[in-house]
């Protein structure tokens, strides 16, 4: 197992390295002059030169790359041209916002998607199943931006049930002291229930927007893998031996269906880690997705690069975690031989 873990980490390192290389060179192709961005519109050629010098932009690309990698290894992803701040710090400040949203969205998706998927599988080909599938198709065909907009229109402008799209808390509310970075958790830890509630109300619409979309693949995968296990010979055996329906459904059926479901949740969560750019933009969510978008708009290479690398890293870490979860769920999988769904 350790050798597997070692190999896995090695592969991860290779992948991260690949990400760094690809991103770095893609970024060099981006049109626009980073120095000009930094210098502002009044800069003379000399000033530009001075800035290029200062930021190492006049070095040959390979040198820039080596320097970049050297710093990146030390955890320094460079300086944002847009804000003048350290990219690593800025990303770390924004990451909790994205993660909190991702967490609740995935949680919602799982809480909604898993039961629906199980019921659909258990009542296959009935109207319940059809309805579940239509919901799943609707979810996977949903445009984030439109759903977010319509939810805001309905629940904020029209009904006023939820706060408007202004971020994680009301403008006038002091955020809780940072412990985990999750406002809901930090507020709870501080015993400030009102604040926690407020954080939840601000989370509600974006989390529902994302959660609805994410529930679709979960419904689909839970349903299909449940159907597969329910059709399996061991479920038939359990039935033949008189195991009660519920236990068959959950112990024999769902437990074995969990593997593809875990993969799905993992992939989904991985995708969400990157922050959902559109949703963060619509709901003014101060996460990494919005940061990346703003960086992209102004050619802020280092910030964008940092973002992509952090997302890649998180994704890979997540994959390793999923591997462990697998081996816990399925004894057939000695780490390394993943049964891919």
């Amino acid at each position, binding site marked *: 197992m350790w050798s597997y873990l070692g190999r896995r980490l090695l592969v991860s390192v290779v992948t991260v390295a690949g990400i760094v290389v690809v991103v770095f060179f893609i970024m060099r192709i981006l049109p626009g002059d980073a120095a000009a961005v930094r210098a502002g519109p009044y800069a003379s050629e000399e000033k530009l030169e001075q800035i290029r010098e200062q930021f190492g932009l006049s070095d040959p690309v390979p040198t820039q790359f080596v320097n970049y990698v050297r710093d990146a290894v030390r955890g320094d992803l460079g300086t944002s041209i847009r804000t003048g701040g350290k990219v690593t710090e800025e990303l770390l400040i924004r990451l909790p916002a994205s993660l909190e949203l991702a967490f609740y969205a995935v949680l919602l998706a799982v809480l909604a998607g898993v039961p629906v998927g199980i019921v659909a599988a258990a009542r296959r080909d009935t109207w319940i199943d059809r309805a579940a599938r239509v919901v799943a198709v609707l979810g996977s065909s949903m445009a984030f931006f439109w759903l977010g907009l319509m939810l805001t229109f309905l629940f904020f402008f029209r009904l006023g049930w939820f706060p408007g799209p202004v971020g994680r808390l009301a403008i006038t509310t002091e955020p809780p002291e940072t412990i985990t970075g999750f406002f809901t958790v930090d507020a709870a830890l501080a015993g400030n229930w009102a604040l926690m509630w407020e954080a939840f109300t601000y989370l509600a619409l974006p989390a529902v927007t994302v959660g609805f979309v994410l529930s679709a693949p979960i419904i689909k995968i839970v349903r299909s893998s449940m159907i597969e296990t329910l059709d399996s010979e061991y479920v038939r055996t359990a*039935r033949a031996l008189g195991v009660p329906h519920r236990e068959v459904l959950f112990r024999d059926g769902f437990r074995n269906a969990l593997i593809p479901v875990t993969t799905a949740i993992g992939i989904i969560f991985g995708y969400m880690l990157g922050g959902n750019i559109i949703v963060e933009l619509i709901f003014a969510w101060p996460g990494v997705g919005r940061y990346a978008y703003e960086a992209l708009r102004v050619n802020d290479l280092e910030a964008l690069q940092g973002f992509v690398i952090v997302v890649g890293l998180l994704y890979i870490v997540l994959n390793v975690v999923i591997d462990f979860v697998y081996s816990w769920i399925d004894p*057939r999988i000695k780490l390394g031989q993943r049964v891919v769904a």
Partner: protein
Amino acid sequence: MSTLEVEGLTVGVTRSPTSILADVSFSVPAGKIVGLVGESGSGKTMAALTMMGLLPDGIELRSGSVRMDGRQLLDPARMTVSRESADMAMIFQHPQAALNPTMKVGRQIARVFSLQQGAGRSEAMSQSIEMLRRVGIPGAARVAGAHPHQLSGGMCQRVMIAMALACRPRILIADEPTTALDVTIQAQIFDLIRDLVAETGAGVLFITHDLAAVAEMCDSVTVLFGGQVMEEGSRDDIFRRPRHPYTTYLLDSVQKEVDPHVVEAGVDFELVGCRFGHRCDYAWEACGEVPDLVAVGEGHRSACFLHTAEVTRAGAS
């Protein structure tokens, strides 16, 4: 006396005229091994699943009766067999696939004990180890802690049998229990089944497509083709005195030289009348009807117009 009697079982695909089993009857007496034999797709497994009340979605039971010691198990309102008090257990063809991959085998057996007798967790566990020992598994305690994928096919089949025995069945249905196993292992399993029959007095419905296995294991035999019973009788009747053209054909194709250039018709069968009709060398107009099973000897019955209408046939040809 008969323990299990199946009569007039008709099973079909939902919303389609097709019947997978047409009026199938047989019985399994206590302490006997009854063979159910037929080609692939002839409905052997379906018959077993019907009796267990485990028909898959999309397959419906249309008519018939399943009686245990004269007690009707078939709920005519819902057209399902209620297995609750049936005392039947079943083992399957692919033992490894039939065990829950994420559960230790000991637990899987213990679960059955808990269900059957309400035994406590640890008690059920020790009973399950005992049961593993009884089906001849060396190092039963260790094996009980293993997951199915860590066991060989033969071992898994023993575990399956142990699970089935944990139900204390009066009828054991064995659906091709050894086709996935090697001959030497098959011999072990056959011995085990025979021993169990002797020991527990349970009746066994032994499903297979292998005539030789039937000849070796069974006391009596029912031959199925296309969901219809072709012939039934004691082992001697079927192997020494086959009366139905299909049985003869089957025995011949295993034992005798055949013409390689006759294009075989696959497993197709007729929808109307005798299902063997179009492959039968003796077929004639009458075969458009479904022939009844008629007694052709003591406890030996065959479903062919040849027996009932010798004269007509002579006239026709």
